[in-house]
């Protein structure tokens, strides 16, 4: 009798009959569907956000995994934002970097973050890294209808695997397919250039500071060739963002250190071009 009453009044968070489990997206579907990222049915005549105007990359090094991204968002040939954050710590041991339509991508990063936290609190223990990668795959897959309308979200997901004590990284397709990369990967409009740059200088025994150098060099090379990827803006002091994911957690690399790496890259390029 009580349940019938409650069902009639459509109360949320009922004691009986509500969603039971550790998936935040299913909870949203069940209780608050209006909060789901859902652009179904919206008419998009022209893309209002540039798809793939970006370069983000991830690479494994001896301490774990590094994830880096540029700061530019463009609409066509014009700057939409100079200081976008494309690298998100999704929990203590995982990071997601995004390329593609900025709005849905940021929403997805937010959702992944809360999804991982929700699971951890309900179950009492965090997901394994594999489980986290899988969760993201499902979010990407659910986004496929929107991707077909031009709102593509293409992330790189990386983290520190506490079981194996190594960094791991995956890239994703709009269908939700995910591919684990052994060394490094990059997505976005400048990704080809970043990947070529990394291909030449990557080694499997990189230490932290070499890893940072490589990442900055790759992003600089990408910005050099792809206009939709932002380089370092010295006037405004805007630098790429780098996060490191290691055994003890995720660290933001200080701007100071990034600047020093950038100075080294510039110095060596100048040297090469000086004769």
């Amino acid at each position: 009798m009580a349940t019938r009453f409650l069902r009639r009044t459509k109360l949320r968070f009922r004691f009986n009959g509500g969603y039971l489990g550790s998936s935040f997206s299913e909870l949203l579907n069940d209780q608050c569907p209006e909060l789901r990222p859902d652009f179904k049915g919206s008419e998009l005549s022209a893309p209002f956000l540039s798809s793939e105007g970006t370069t983000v990359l991830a690479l494994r090094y001896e301490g774990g995994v590094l994830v880096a991204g540029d700061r530019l968002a463009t609409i066509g040939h014009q700057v939409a934002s100079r200081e976008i954050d494309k690298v998100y710590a999704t929990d203590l041991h995982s990071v997601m970097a995004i390329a593609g339509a900025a709005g849905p991508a940021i929403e997805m990063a937010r959702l992944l973050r809360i999804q991982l936290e929700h699971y951890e609190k309900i179950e009492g223990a965090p997901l394994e890294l594999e489980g986290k990668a899988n969760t993201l795959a499902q979010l990407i897959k659910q986004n496929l209808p929107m991707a077909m309308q031009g709102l593509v979200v293409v992330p790189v997901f990386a983290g520190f695997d506490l079981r194996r004590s190594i960094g791991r990284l995956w890239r994703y397709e709009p269908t939700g397919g995910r591919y684990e990369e052994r060394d490094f990967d990059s997505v976005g409009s400048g990704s080809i250039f970043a990947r070529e740059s990394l291909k030449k200088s990557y080694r499997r025994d990189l230490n932290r500071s070499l890893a940072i150098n490589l990442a900055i060099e790759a992003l600089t090379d990408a910005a050099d060739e792809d206009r939709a990827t932002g380089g370092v803006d010295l006037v405004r002091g805007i630098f790429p963002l780098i996060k490191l994911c290691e055994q003890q957690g995720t660290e933001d690399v200080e701007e100071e250190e990034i600047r020093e790496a950038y100075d080294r890259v510039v110095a060596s390029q100048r040297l090469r071009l000086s004769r």
Partner: protein
Amino acid sequence: MSMPFYVSPEQMTQDKAEFARKGIARGRSLITLEYDEGILLVAENPLNLSKIGEIYDRIGFAGVGKYSEFDRLRQLGIQYADVQGFRFSREDVRAKALANLYSQMIGDEFNRAIKPLEVEIVVAEIGDPESPAHSANALYNVNFDGSILELEGFSVIGGANDNVKRHVEVNYQENMPLETALELGHDALQRAENGTSDLPSESLEVCLLDRSRTGRKFVRLTSPDVKEILTK
């Protein structure tokens, strides 16, 4: 024997209340204490099934009574908090709203369900110094009938806890260091009429809302941690 059509609301309520109280008294006690750096929650619980849980950045939950029922409430609390935080912002999730939600939910079950929930729960929130309206700690008790109490300093729920309550009331001090608070909790739990008088530290479930942490303040202490603090 034929069932009477009419039972007086008084009778019904009293019967339900007695039933619920019995259920809660059968379990073990649980103590919540404010200390200098935050809030401590401690229970006699040698099992892996937890009575104390994290709800959100600054909010912790604890329950006594029927495990399946208060654990369901714990999960509902997490669902509510995560949706609120997602819908608005992390800073907009408050214990007061959650405690009120619990009060409604548990009260509804008391009134309408065939049997009431045999639970008593604590919602504890550590103060947010950056928000003038919410800079103080908050401590709520919600009982089996939905009645909600706002408390200061400490709370004792569950089990046969008259002695436990008395011990805490007498010995509680504001701004105790963690070691003192944990010792007080440990001591008090050993005085429960249906508790274990020689309670090893491994049988304690101890959690903190620790002000010194950034972001999520909730910490679950391991057995070695607890032992270390108690031997200081």
